[in-house]
């Protein structure tokens, strides 16, 4: 607990430390490439014949996904705390690449834990991390995916805590991580809110984002929480069916996805996919970044409060959506972000033509070309 207190203190200080904030903003702008565009998706809009759709182009960031926002924030925090070594877990590999990138940029040692199943399906990202001179450690326990990578990273952290900062990539784990990661990602919604007001002179009616742990979605949603008219919609991975083990949908019981109950995993009390004895379930998703049995606790709270809605789409629907976006907009999305597009498509019957959508295109699809090319 003491290292968590230390981190919380460092983070609280950083919030009001002008030198930290200046560096953070500078790196977001000049290293990562912020602000990202809010692009009107004219052909997708025309094709679907429904609401006006804007894409928040986080896929255009350096390293190819929103993960870099948080990695820069925590990387700077590691430097402030005098920790020369960072460790990270990764599922899709985007957080691993972002961490390795920031570590190289700031001169920190970096070790990334990645499940062997994910290393196989996201081989490009594993290679990118090595190119950035991070050490990639293969995790061969449990389901060999994100959950197991987090277990192994936590074991490393408790062992090397005096020299090491754990750069956790999503709104998961013990306090202060869910809050801190949300804050570092909330730049997405801050920009998007200004951009949509400038472009359309009104607030959006709907926000869509995919939810694994939930960092890109909370990053988009957070700035709109008080705008009661804005519907917040998180899309989970429905995998290949509703049975436990076949999906990663924690908040979609209404759609027949079974197995989620409140529980404790990796320091968080939230909805967790588990069996009746409290053993954590294995999950399935075609998308490594969504393939995780728990959801960020703030999403659990937003769902319970009915402030945000959550639903799940299948592997197949996500693949179809990825092809559609590629064809209509000339953008190959990450498989994770493709879930958000599929979620939007499935909701069209309930939407009106004058609705206004912001969809978070959280990452680009380069890393998923192996999966995509098998379908061509």
């Amino acid at each position, binding site marked *: 607990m003491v290292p968590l207190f230390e981190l919380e203190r460092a983070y609280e200080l950083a919030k009001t430390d002008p030198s930290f904030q200046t560096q953070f903003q500078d790196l977001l702008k000049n290293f990562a490439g912020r602000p990202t565009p809010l692009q009107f998706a004219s052909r997708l809009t025309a094709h679907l014949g429904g609401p006006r759709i804007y894409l928040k182009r986080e896929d255009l960031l350096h390293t190819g996904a929103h993960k870099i926002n948080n990695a820069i924030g925590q990387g700077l925090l590691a430097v402030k705390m005098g920790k020369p070594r960072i460790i990270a877990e990764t599922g899709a590999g985007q957080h691993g690449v972002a961490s390795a990138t920031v570590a190289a940029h700031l001169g920190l040692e970096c070790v990334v834990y990645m499940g062997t199943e994910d290393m196989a399906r996201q081989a490009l990202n594993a290679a990118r991390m090595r190119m950035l001179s991070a050490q990639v450690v293969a995790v061969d326990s*449990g389901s060999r995916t994100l959950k197991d990578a987090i*277990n192994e990273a936590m074991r490393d952290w408790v*062992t090397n*805590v005096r020299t090491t900062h754990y750069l956790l990539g999503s709104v998961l784990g013990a306090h202060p991580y869910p809050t801190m990661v949300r804050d570092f990602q909330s730049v997405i919604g801050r920009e998007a809110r200004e951009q949509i007001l400038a472009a359309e002179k009104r607030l959006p009616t709907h926000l869509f984002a995919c939810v694994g742990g939930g960092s890109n979605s909370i990053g988009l949603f957070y700035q709109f929480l008080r705008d009661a008219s804005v519907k917040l919609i998180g899309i989970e991975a429905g995998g290949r069916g509703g049975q436990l083990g076949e999906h990663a949908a924690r908040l979609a019981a209404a759609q027949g996805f079974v197995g989620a109950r409140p529980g404790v995993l990796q320091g968080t009390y939230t909805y967790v996919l588990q069996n*009746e004895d409290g053993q*954590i379930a294995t999950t399935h998703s075609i998308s490594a970044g969504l393939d995780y049995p728990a959801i960020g606790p703030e999403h659990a709270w937003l769902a319970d409060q009915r402030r945000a809605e959550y639903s799940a789409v299948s592997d197949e629907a996500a693949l179809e959506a990825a092809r559609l976006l590629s064809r209509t907009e000339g953008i190959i999305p990450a498989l994770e972000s493709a879930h958000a597009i599929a979620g939007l498509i499935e909701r069209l019957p309930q939407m009106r033509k004058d609705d206004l959508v912001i969809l978070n295109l959280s990452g680009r699809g380069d890393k998923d070309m192996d999966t995509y090319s098998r379908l061509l």
Partner: protein
Amino acid sequence: MSSASPNSTRISKRFAELRASGELGIVAYITAGDPSLDATLKFVLALAEAGADVIELGVPFSDPLADGPTIQRASERALKSGTTLAGVLNLVRSIRQSSPPANDVPLVLFSYYNPILQMGLEKFAAAAAAAGADGVLATDLTPEESGDYRRILSAHHLDTIFLGAPTSTDERLAKIAACSSGFLYLISRTGVTGAKDALPDDLPALLRRARSVTQLPIAVGFGISLPGHVSVLGGLADAAVIGSALVSEIEKATVPNPTTAAIDAAASALASRLRALKEAARHGLSRREAPMHRGKVAP
């Protein structure tokens, strides 16, 4: 807070006896259900017979993030054999119905929090107490979040044991101790469970810090495997916890074929390990330095 819980458990009694004799206790950890609950019963009988002062039964969990590879593998084997928390509580009942000394050995359930939470705190505490368990250690439950848990467990006369770490400040150690009853479990080094060659140099200092904030008996675990470690701890700690080294013996004997003969071989390997550790505890440095932990330790 520790004084608020009824201090009449087998655990407190055993530590009082150890203090009186100036001998270092041995706490033996094994993962319940590895390779089967029937096998675990045999192992517990053997360990108790060989002189284990407290036995910790690990409740297997799918995501044992405080554990090193040895206990991770044991948890996987135990889950594969169908072990559940309810099954482990049945095992506790069987141990209590067995013959001396196992029927009276102090038993601690060592679990991650989620299986307990899913059973329900009240149901779990009632069942654990009825089965004959003496204490519970929930590895991933922090003192901050433990209010209901401690209230309910102590109402059922179960000790609540929490972990202190080398990174814990004096203030933190005091808080952990205040939430603990039975004994305080100190982690010898930063890290996960698993046998190591040497004890960390700063362990005596950590023990002194812990002594200065609590009167509770102190058991030291994580990385302790050899009689030599036990000798060094005598006079510093009240007990040493041996886990992965015992689990390794079980693995060596029963993987991949947990036959009856293999399980019997594992049981006698556990017994001889335990006897060697008890021997070291009796004849090592423990006697010489025994008085150290009785009085107040100077800061």
